[in-house]
């Protein structure tokens, strides 16, 4: 599944994951949150590719666990505003001076406080897990490739910056090793600081080399555009952004509810038109852009559905989504919201179907290490050019 022809549009994965995240932000029910994380994890396990970014999920899960732990530690040490009656244990309280009134160090730790902190931490952890799932399924770099032409350069800058981080880490390692070779200590913060300057120097040199390479490869070629169009582009973009700002301000304040919405809409329209016009200056074309196909609609739709159903359930039965910490009650799994969360499994279901249904193509592309090389890669080739590698037998998929 590392093949780009069968890869889903990166935007679809992000919509799906953000839908799940929106649902997670609407509840503190630990059972629902666990279910959400489970759904995201299952989909990642089924759909992820062998790309390097697909390992991101584990990192985000660990980060989520760390968030829960930190939240609990704070609840224990600093106390909790939740009034509780079940004392678990009592820490010695540190007497604080008068000016720090309202802050408490140590003291009584109640079960209610802990439970509340746990629920709260779980909510954050679930949000992180959803973002992690998006990262593992679609690299943010691929998402940036779908930006409109006028924003292309911003996208390149971000992609280049992201490939720089691993280079920096490698540089730090290399220079610390070199320090050791000079007979100097290579551990500790001081050693790390000492390599800082050479690392920055190296990064700067690499940027200059990359800039030269990009220039020599035609980066930044522009098409001639009439000055009138250029001025119109600037005016539309700037005016549009101003409109968006003013509209948002109106919507948030109580006075401007009347003019807020139309101003926001007009601003957005102007900004989009500006971006579109700005795209004319760019001569670039796109190589195999991600297509937003039916499956992408299904995947993003499932994410939106989860979020919408959860919000709707929240307006109906708020108590089920927010089990109270005071008094202590064991949370129960509300049936309908749980069913809504399960909608998020749709990507995993649609994923497994094509993988089994297209098996006959396996093995036609002898040079590709992946056993299942999906057919659309070649079916989409203009003029039916045969794909790479030796053909071992006639490929039936060429006609599909």
């Amino acid at each position, binding site marked *: 599944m590392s093949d780009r022809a069968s890869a889903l549009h990166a935007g679809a994965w992000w919509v799906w994951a953000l839908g799940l995240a929106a649902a997670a932000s609407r509840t503190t029910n630990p059972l629902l949150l666990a279910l959400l994380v489970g759904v995201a994890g299952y989909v990642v396990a089924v759909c992820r590719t062998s790309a390097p970014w697909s390992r991101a999920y584990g990192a985000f899960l660990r980060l989520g666990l760390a968030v829960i732990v930190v939240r609990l530690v704070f609840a224990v040490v600093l106390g909790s505003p939740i009034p509780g009656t079940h004392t678990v244990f009592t820490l010695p309280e540190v007497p604080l001076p008068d000016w720090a009134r309202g802050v408490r160090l140590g003291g009584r730790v109640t079960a209610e406080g802990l439970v509340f902190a746990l629920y709260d931490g779980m909510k954050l952890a679930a949000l992180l897990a959803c973002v992690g799932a998006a990262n593992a399924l679609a690299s943010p770099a691929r998402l940036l490739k779908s930006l409109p032409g006028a924003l292309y350069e911003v996208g390149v800058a971000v*992609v280049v910056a992201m490939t720089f981080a691993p280079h920096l880490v490698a540089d730090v390692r290399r220079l610390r090793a070199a320090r050791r070779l000079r007979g100097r200590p290579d551990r500790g913060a001081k050693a790390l600081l000492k390599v800082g300057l050479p690392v920055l120097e190296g990064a700067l040199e690499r940027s200059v080399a990359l800039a030269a390479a990009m*220039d020599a*490869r035609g980066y930044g070629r522009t098409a001639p555009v009439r000055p009138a169009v250029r001025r119109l582009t600037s005016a539309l973009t700037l005016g549009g952004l101003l409109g968006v700002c003013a509209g948002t301000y109106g919507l948030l304040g109580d006075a401007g509810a009347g003019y807020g919405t139309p101003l926001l809409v007009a601003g957005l329209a102007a900004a989009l038109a500006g971006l579109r016009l700005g795209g004319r200056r760019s001569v*670039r074309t796109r*190589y*195999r852009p991600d297509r937003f196909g039916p499956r992408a609609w299904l995947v993003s739709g499932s994410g939106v559905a989860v979020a919408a159903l959860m919000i709707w359930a929240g307006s109906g039965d708020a108590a089920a989504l927010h089990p109270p910490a005071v008094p202590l009650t064991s949370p129960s799994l509300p049936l309908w919201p749980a069913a809504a969360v399960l909608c998020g499994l749709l990507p995993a279901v649609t994923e497994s179907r094509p993988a089994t249904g297209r098996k006959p193509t396996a093995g036609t592309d002898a040079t590709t290490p992946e056993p299942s090389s999906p057919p659309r890669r070649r079916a989409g080739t203009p003029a039916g050019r045969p794909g790479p590698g030796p053909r071992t037998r006639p490929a039936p998929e060429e006609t599909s």
Partner: protein
Amino acid sequence: MIRFDQVSVHYEGAAAPALSGVDLTVPEGELCLLVGPSGAGKSTLLGAVSGLVPHFTGGTLHGRVTVAGRDTRTHKPRELADVVGTVGQDPLAHFVTDTVEDELAYGMESLGVPPATMRRRVEETLDLLGLAPLRDRPLAELSGGQQQRVAIGSVLTTHPKVLVLDEPTSALDPGAAEEVLAVLQRLVHDLGTTVLLAEHRLERVVQYADRVVLLPGPGRAAVAGEPAQVMEVSPVRPPVVELGRLAGWSPLPLTVRDARRRAEPLRERLAPLAPPVAGAAAPATAPVPRPRRASLLRRAWRPAPVESGPAPAAEVTGLAVRRGAVPALREVGLTVRAGETVALMGRNGAGKSTLLRTLAGLHEPQRGTVRVGGAVPHRTAPRDLLRYVGLVPQEPRDLLCEDTVAAECAAADRDAQAAPGTCRGLVTALLPEVADGTHPRDLSEGQRLALALAVVLTARPPLLLLDEPTRGLDYAAKARLVDHLRGLATAGHAIVLATHDVELAAELAHRVVVVAEGEIVADGPTADIVVSSPAFAPQVAKILAPQHWLTVTQVGEALGGGGAV
């Protein structure tokens, strides 16, 4: 296709122009090789073709450079991108995207090639360069040769008329270098691309060139012509040409095959002479008379049999090292004696550097033992280890952290707790011409290597490790390095060098150890190992096989100070 008209380039703040008065024409469809010592302006000339000089680097260009009829003064590099493709020495510095397929498409996207054409050209280029199995792979995971091929492919997709390459094979092992050169051959023959390339390792490329342009150095005019003619006057020559000059052959042979056909009388004359001792000088202690050839099967090394003589400078038994999840070395056994020079050879990623770094205490062994003069490297504090072993890393610049040569030397003396002036003394011996106030960054590759070597030698380590020391060195700098290392070996230092440079190994090493996939697959006297190997044999050995001659110097000495045959 490429025309230089009285071109001079002067960089801001430089005392002398980098190029002066170059007149040059490269016709369409030629493979033109640019040779010359370091600092002769090869990179500047290449940069002028792609327009990066002076648009990107600054400086002043006099005269006129035209490429496919476009004047580089009025065309910026990006406007030449459709006629000139440039590939540098380090492919990683060239990559903009993260996977092979995207990288191949990047240049075409910038030029606005229609999507259908892009798709076709990417598939064609994948096939042309043999990259199809790698199309979805992240660039960072490829080997050096694969990365270099992707870099070439990424500029080919725009169908440039001219391809400019700056030392495309200097970081590659012999096999990967041949891969890249075969691709260039194919481009010239099948697509009629004009190729202009600069390379220090002439023995790899000179036979492919249609024309050689020699930049003899600052202040002297460029010479262009047939390869054999230019090699007559060139100060930089591959061993096959050196041997041809020694034997008085005319015209000079450029390929091993040409030379071999003419070498019959020379071979007859050399046959009765004494077979040379490997590495030109015998090791200070008794040479190791054990041509151990490890089988490919894994087997644990027995500890080296006890022999008379001093304790080994380094002893490795049953060593296994992992880097991340990947096993980098398995069951490696190696003994290096004082005064002995050992060359580690093998393809990129075979584990040579890991072995050196483990000896220097940078990696912890997973299994097995490592002893360096009685110390366990990874358990010894850095400041003590300094006196047992010194490593000059692949990028000697990493070792240098001060602003001036003098400060660097003072720091080295402090690190090694040596008497002040020790390091400066070594630097003066190695680099008589370098002033105290020079910034290490302004030194040439060879000078920087010498400075790093001096820094390492300040602590007088009995074991000296060098990782790929001749990358980017011209023949003169290499000869100085060889002389110096020979002197160190005679003085009793044990030297281990990891190298792709078969000529260097032939000049210097008493023993060659071949590493493949983390195992030692051959270990024996240099002549025994390299003469039988097609990849690791130096040119002289290939010409004079089956006799065991390795270098031109050996042949010259055997013939009694040279002279025509």
